[in-house]
């Protein structure tokens, strides 16, 4: 068992709780830096996609996992970021400025979505965001002068101070840099008053109000931040694929994003990364396993969707805390051995929350 013996308040604020924590994440970072020389080009591209989806997943995690606002239209924000980046880079803007503009544009659209969302809760918010996703996809398809319509549009390589990031390795390092910055930003947010206000809104709006938290303002802020992160991810996605079209940001992509954070573990930053790894590796595993299955299953057209659905249902039923939750349980078992009780992570039943004022 490990005891964290803290000697001052600053110790509480540190991101790496103890030496081992810092060591392993440092090792992970070094490993990621060395990745281009370890992985083949194909797996490096997959790793780049993992990083891109992690950024979007972080955005959705801030909104759904930490503020409790369920969104089924997040691919729309990804698309806004992607198309903004495309339009600006094709007009020869430098890449970092275009990236910032894509993030801000997505944040603006997020605010526009967030304002009516203040009036609806729970499943009705999910329906509203689903509708929004369809609207934005249709805007992408119709606004042909900017987005190229359904035929799609090519994306030029990012340019900055004379460098052109058009190789796999430079693209990977660009995405890695943005991912590290986004993760640090989200972690900083969560250990500061704004992040705590988000958690308060998720857990109990009524008492959040009585603590002085302006619900409308913080919900809108959460939408804006989440949309900005999704827009950043979308912009990098556009550069990676070098060709985007409206059907890449449809409701299927939104559901993939929700699936990603639920399987990864709602309510934790690790969940976004674990979910992204799951989202990228599952099709690979299905492709590998297809040949060993009888033809009627292996060659069926909807196999991937079926596997995703079954896995999602399995996680919701048996492991609602997701992959990260399962890891936490394993770690706690090992740390507390032999005192681990199966009731340590039991969920509170809803009947204990009677007489809710809302």
């Amino acid at each position: 068992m490990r005891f964290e013996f803290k000697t001052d308040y600053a110790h509480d604020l540190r991101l790496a709780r103890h030496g081992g924590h810092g060591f392993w994440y440092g090792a992970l970072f070094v490993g990621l830096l060395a990745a281009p020389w370890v992985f083949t080009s194909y797996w490096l591209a997959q790793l780049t996609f993992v990083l891109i989806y992690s950024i979007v997943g972080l955005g959705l995690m801030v909104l759904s996992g930490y503020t409790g606002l369920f969104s089924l239209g997040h691919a729309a924000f990804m698309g806004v970021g992607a198309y903004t980046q495309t339009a600006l880079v094709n007009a020869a803007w430098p890449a970092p400025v275009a990236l910032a503009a894509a993030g801000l544009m997505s944040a603006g659209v997020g605010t526009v979505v967030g304002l009516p969302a203040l009036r609806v809760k729970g499943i009705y918010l999910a329906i509203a965001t689903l509708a929004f996703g369809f609207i934005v996809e249709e805007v992408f398809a119709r606004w042909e002068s900017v987005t190229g319509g359904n035929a799609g549009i090519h994306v030029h390589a990012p340019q900055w101070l004379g460098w052109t990031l058009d190789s796999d390795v430079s693209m990977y390092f660009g995405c890695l840099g943005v991912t590290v910055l986004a993760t640090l930003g989200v972690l900083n947010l969560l250990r500061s008053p704004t992040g705590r206000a988000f958690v308060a809104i998720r857990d109990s709006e009524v008492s959040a109000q009585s603590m002085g938290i302006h619900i409308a303002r913080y919900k809108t802020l959460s939408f804006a931040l989440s949309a900005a992160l999704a827009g950043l991810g979308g912009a990098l996605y556009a550069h990676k694929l070098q060709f985007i079209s409206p059907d890449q940001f449809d409701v299927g992509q939104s559901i993939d994003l929700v699936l990603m954070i639920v399987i990864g573990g709602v309510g934790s930053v690790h969940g976004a990364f674990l979910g992204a790894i799951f989202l990228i590796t599952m099709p690979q595993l299905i492709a590998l396993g297809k040949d060993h299955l009888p033809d009627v299953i292996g060659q069926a057209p909807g196999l991937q969707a079926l596997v995703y659905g079954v896995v999602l249902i399995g996680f919701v039923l048996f492991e609602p805390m997701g992959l990260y939750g399962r890891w936490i349980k394993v770690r706690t078992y090992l740390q507390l051995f032999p005192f681990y009780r199966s009731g340590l992570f039991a969920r509170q039943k809803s009947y204990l929350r009677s007489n809710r004022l809302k």
Partner: protein
Amino acid sequence: MRFGGLLAVNDVAFDVRHGEVFTLIGPNGAGKTTVFNLISRLYTPSAGTIDFDGMSLANQGPHDLARLGIARTFQNIELFEQASVLQNLLIGRHTQRSTALWQELLYTPAVRRAEVAAREQVEQVIDLLELQHHRDARVASLPYGVRKVVELARALCARPRLLLLDEPSSGLNVEETDDMAFWIQDIRHELGVTVLMVEHDMSLVSKVSDRVLAMNQGEVLALGTPGDVQRDARVIEAYLGSVDDVAGLRRGAP
């Protein structure tokens, strides 16, 4: 306060003086929590006014009250269950935040200093209510009695001038109720906070309150010192009961 055809609070008028402990008593359904919700601006009164420190609360939203100095606890505990006790108390300090969003995203030294200062303030409340043992525990794993104390601590972290306590001793055993009585007295004497509470435990009410208001069916029955109200005939009939009422239910001696 009228909910459709139901008049939940009918012509209830009282004033709470600075530095006193004022208690609302009455049977369940009398409208006591409704009065609290009216003061907390979760409901808007259909008639009448609510003034705090000479200022009308009519134009304030529920989130404005913490800044004005009103904090409350809830009858069914409304804590942030998935967060730790320390994070709950830090959220209580939300009105005293001094940093902007961009500073928090970058975690500038100003944010760091503000966080350490907040931790020091929160530690004082933890020391007062003896929550050191539970500081990092997730609220969902705590027993009910401790959650009640955390609820009180969170309200205190907002540095209120008026504290609304909704049934602070419900679900607590004798020892915990005694602790609660000492803490309410400490809050009044050491922190100078005015306390307005709803309570059913008459021993706690007698020990702690300066004045009591008895309500029934949304109307005022009696207002005065604890002793006066407890002797009022209408209050005895509607709420307290007397020894004679239950005499007929007692079994004879074996």
